[in-house]
């Protein structure tokens, strides 16, 4: 236990969800997507220190990986990833003038974890 150094991370660097709005106009897709104009996709970013992996919605695996990283720095740190995603619907038009409505799973990050 004594060999594991205490983590030096500030709260703002811890794994959490960040806002990311994807505007279809920025991608030039507004020319064929009727709706929505864009969507809040979000993303996950931040550290997963060993001492906090359990409180950061972390998996048992993340806990073990963080522990091993603390012992051997050659093993990468546990990573901050989406743990809950939700779908969006898109209305668009193809080259045959068909109007299409499709639902796409896992497009919005609702929650993040280690």
């Amino acid at each position, binding site marked *: 236990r004594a060999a594991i150094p205490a983590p030096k991370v500030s709260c703002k660097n811890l794994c959490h969800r960040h806002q990311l709005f994807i505007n279809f106009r920025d991608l030039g897709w507004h020319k*064929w997507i009727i709706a929505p104009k864009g969507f809040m996709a979000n993303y996950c970013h931040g550290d997963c220190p060993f001492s906090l992996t359990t409180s950061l919605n972390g998996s048992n695996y993340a806990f073990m990986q963080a522990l091993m990283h603390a012992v051997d720095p050659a093993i990468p740190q546990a990573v901050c990833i989406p743990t809950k995603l*939700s*779908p969006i619907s898109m209305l668009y038009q193809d080259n045959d*003038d068909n109007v299409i*409505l499709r639902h796409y799973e896992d497009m919005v990050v609702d929650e993040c974890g280690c």
Partner: protein
Amino acid sequence: ALGQTFQFQEHAFLQFLGLDKVPSPQKFQPVPYILKKIFHDQETAATIGISRDLCYVKELGVQGNILRLLPDQGFFLYSKNLPQASPCLQKLLYFNLSAVKDEERLTMAQLGLDLGPNTYYHLGPDLELVLSLVQEPHVWDRSIPKPGKMFVLQSVPWPQGVLHFNLLEVAKDWSNNPQKNLGLFLEILVKGQRDSGVNFQLEDTCARLRCSLHASLLVVTLNPKQCHSSSRKR
């Protein structure tokens, strides 16, 4: 290099969306109410955190995760005969189903015919709409195109407003055998003899019908690859 990377990633994402290339429509088609409603219902459910079965279209009561509104690509047939001896309107309706992929299963195909507002109020029970399936290629007779062998699917006396026809079995046949897709023949017939004054009014109505008629095919399909888990749940 950044542009190339974006194009490569864009292509990969478009494939994920089920598209071969970036669509570049000349203008947006009008979106029917039912598609807007399904879109907004889904958006509302996502906003308030309600999870919905994405492979069941509650609003239509059918399984499916892809809804397509196919525009009519057919054409009107015009006759030089006198109006009293000819149908009010004849049109070949054609819907290109090539966008439906092989792995998709058709669960609904609904033909929508919008005849425009209050078209027949002054005519009484004098018109009849007949929808037929074209079973043989069209033939040309004295420069007037006529469809070949046909099978009457449905006739509607005194048609008006928006009409819907269930074409699931027909669309399944077209989808499985694209060479069989020779379209539909739509005819609005005048019943009985008319005097000259009424004929004038009838001509006017038929001309307005030709302008306002709008046909589309709403097709719902289910891609089992994208729907296996929710299908099992059901």
